[in-house]
């Protein structure tokens, strides 16, 4: 092994393999591709262990490598997939607005509690987020997750997926609206009801 011991790398597979696999699966949906991405992640981690330096946790470091692998995967796929199809883009939740364009008061965004730091420790929150993401149409989900989960700059997302800036903004806007609505209905409103 170049930079780390075999038993260390093997421990990584036991400790973080499941988390990496589940994230990859949420992103690519196909188990065999998710497994390949996890394998590539561990191989890259072993090669680049010296660069790790312990500045973050092992898991965040491995997740960072996996994110890059996923972006590479979509970069290859982007050349083969057309992102011009504007499926799902006609729905703008028009029932939430009065005709002139302001929110109907009862239907505007509700207050979200608890704060992000607290919600991150709730397993059920992550399950709801995964379910809400899975309801987004494929292309919208790819754009949203690349931008918001992987933190890829918007210009780069456009270049990887061969879409225009304006298409990206429209897709992200619809994704954010739909995800916000889904999280509110399935998590925040229910949590608020339980408290009362």
């Amino acid at each position: 092994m170049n930079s780390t011991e075999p038993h260390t790398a093997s421990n990584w597979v036991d400790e973080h393999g499941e988390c990496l696999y589940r994230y990859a699966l949420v992103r690519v949906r196909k188990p065999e591709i998710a497994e390949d991405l996890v394998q590539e992640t561990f191989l890259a981690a072993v090669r680049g262990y010296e660069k790790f330096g312990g500045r973050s946790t092992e898991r965040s470091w491995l997740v960072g490598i996996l994110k890059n692998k996923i972006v590479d995967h979509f970069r290859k796929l982007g050349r083969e997939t057309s992102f011009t199809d504007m499926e799902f883009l006609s729905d703008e939740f028009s029932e939430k607005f009065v005709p002139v364009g302001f929110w109907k008061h009862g239907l505007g965004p509700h207050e979200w509690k608890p704060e992000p730091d607290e919600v991150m420790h709730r397993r059920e929150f992550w399950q709801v987020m995964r379910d809400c993401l899975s309801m987004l149409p494929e292309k919208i989900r790819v754009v949203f997750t690349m931008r918001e989960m992987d933190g890829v700059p918007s210009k780069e997302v456009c270049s990887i997926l061969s879409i225009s800036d304006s298409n990206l903004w429209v897709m992200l806007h619809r994704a954010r609206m739909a995800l916000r609505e889904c999280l509110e209905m399935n998590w925040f409103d229910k949590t608020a009801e339980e408290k009362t």
Partner: protein
Amino acid sequence: MPDEPYNPSPVGNPSVLARRNWWQTMLVKFIGKHTPKCREMIRILSKSMDEPMPLMMRIKKRLHFLICCWCLRYEEQLRYMRQTARKFPEHADEASDAEFSSEARERIKRKLEESAR
């Protein structure tokens, strides 16, 4: 159809300005007329998550927030979603029950050992 003035009821409206007296009513109508409507505002708010908002629009946004607590919440919630979405990958094992098979686990360990030789 000509634009109706923004004339929301103050009942159940927690916004800073909400037609609670004559002055507020005038201000609400003025701000409602000179800032983007909520439907447009949330599109602008989403875009501002990806590129900086021009100064004039930032001012209009602040004014709009005075009469619309819902758009203010919308912006806070866009940030909330970004903050949590960035952490999702590290919590993916809690989000799903998908099984990482022992075959895959062993295969990857073998590959790692091979690469060590």
